[in-house]
């Protein structure tokens, strides 16, 4: 994103404005363990967990803040999401 003079932006710009940089921990998804229950997608406050055409889920790390709610809420029988420390 080139800087607009006066911090101006056109509509739809929030897609370009990546907000994932605050993260300390990032989630990783083990698709083998995932039961495709969809809890993580429902619980994600940033709406950055999306279902793929093969019903698996992927996490958009451009916008994920690393809150860990997906890992916390992933059912005990699956525990498909693990939080890992960002290496910056």
């Amino acid at each position, binding site marked *: *994103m080139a*800087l607009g003079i006066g911090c101006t*932006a056109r*509509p739809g710009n929030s897609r370009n404005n990546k907000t994932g*940089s605050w993260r300390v921990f990032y989630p990783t998804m083990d698709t083998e363990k995932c039961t495709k229950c969809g809890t993580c997608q429902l619980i994600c406050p940033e709406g950055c967990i999306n279902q793929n055409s093969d019903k698996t889920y992927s996490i958009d790390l451009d916008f994920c803040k690393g809150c860990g709610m997906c890992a916390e809420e992933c059912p005990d029988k699956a525990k498909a999401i693990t939080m890992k420390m960002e290496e910056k």
Partner: protein
Amino acid sequence: MTMEIMEGSIAVAETVRLCRPQVISAYPITPQTHIVEGLASIVADGRLDAEYICVESEFSALSACIGASAAGSRVYSATTSQGLALMTEVVFNAAGMRLPIVMGIANRAISAPLSIWNDQQDSIMMRDSGWIQLYAEDNQEAIDMHILAYKVCEDHNILLPAFVCFDGFILSHVFEPIDIPSQELVDKFVGPFTPYQKLDVNDPISFGMYATPEYYLEFRYEHDQAVKRAAEAIKKYGKEFGEIFGRDYSELVVGYKLEDADIAIVAMGSICGTVKDAIDEMRAEGKKVGLLNLRCFRPFPSTDVAKALAHVNTIAVLDKNVSLGAKGAVAIEIKEACYGSNIPVYDYILGLGGRDVRKKDIKKIVDLAEKGEGDMFYGLREEVL
């Protein structure tokens, strides 16, 4: 050229009319009141085709100006002291949105204690806001700087708001001979406002957006660069102003009997007139004293200051403000500009809250500077401390 005897504030209002702002929003506050009263009358009498937006506070006044400027209008506002303080959040926003708003500041002290009288603490308080700050010595400069400010601010290479500062009461309420330029010449110099970008429902944009840590530093850098570029723009358009109106503004610092001076006084605003008279008398007594008048405080013309003061052996800075716990804001800048030169820079905080500064005070300050006594509040009444 027709000279008219006019009150400073009315002269400012008449000059703003000549600049053809399309929207004016301001809230009356002493000693700025006559400017906005004047403009309200001018608009009500049909002498200027503009929207005059009455608001309930200074915060709203400048907010209305932001909206109007972003929508593509040339705008004007004026305030002082507490009004400017109330605007603070909006002042920084207007600058960050890079809107070419011109605002007159009739300089006044800041509460508490409450004071309606003059010093320059109000505009100095906004030192870091990213606005251009020009300081007028007399009312002719106050009106000329309004015209110049529109030209500089609206340059697409600059796009910044500007304060035109003139001392409250000392200038705002003083009647003196003034040349109000013709509409034809002002039109020729300022021209119509061409916004760089504007709010348009058919091509929507938002101003002053959110910047993540990846972008904020760069926005601030670009803003800083624009303020620095303004120095050359003021010089360029100041020269052009001189060619059209006969009064030159191509220098950000102006010397008076400075070329052969041993002691330089550095000052800003109306006090320069008093200093010049004191210098004439001291010169007659054989003291080689000169003045450096700072016309522009932001951008700060460090290089010009260092060059103008390189030959003197003592510098006395008159500060009508104080950064409490440090020094006067002007002295801090002068010391930075002269760093490495080994010229002693003495700071004198004076004239706060309307305390008169007279020729005898200037002479006493020169005596103090000669003795190496400075960095002090000058003229303290020890008996009330």
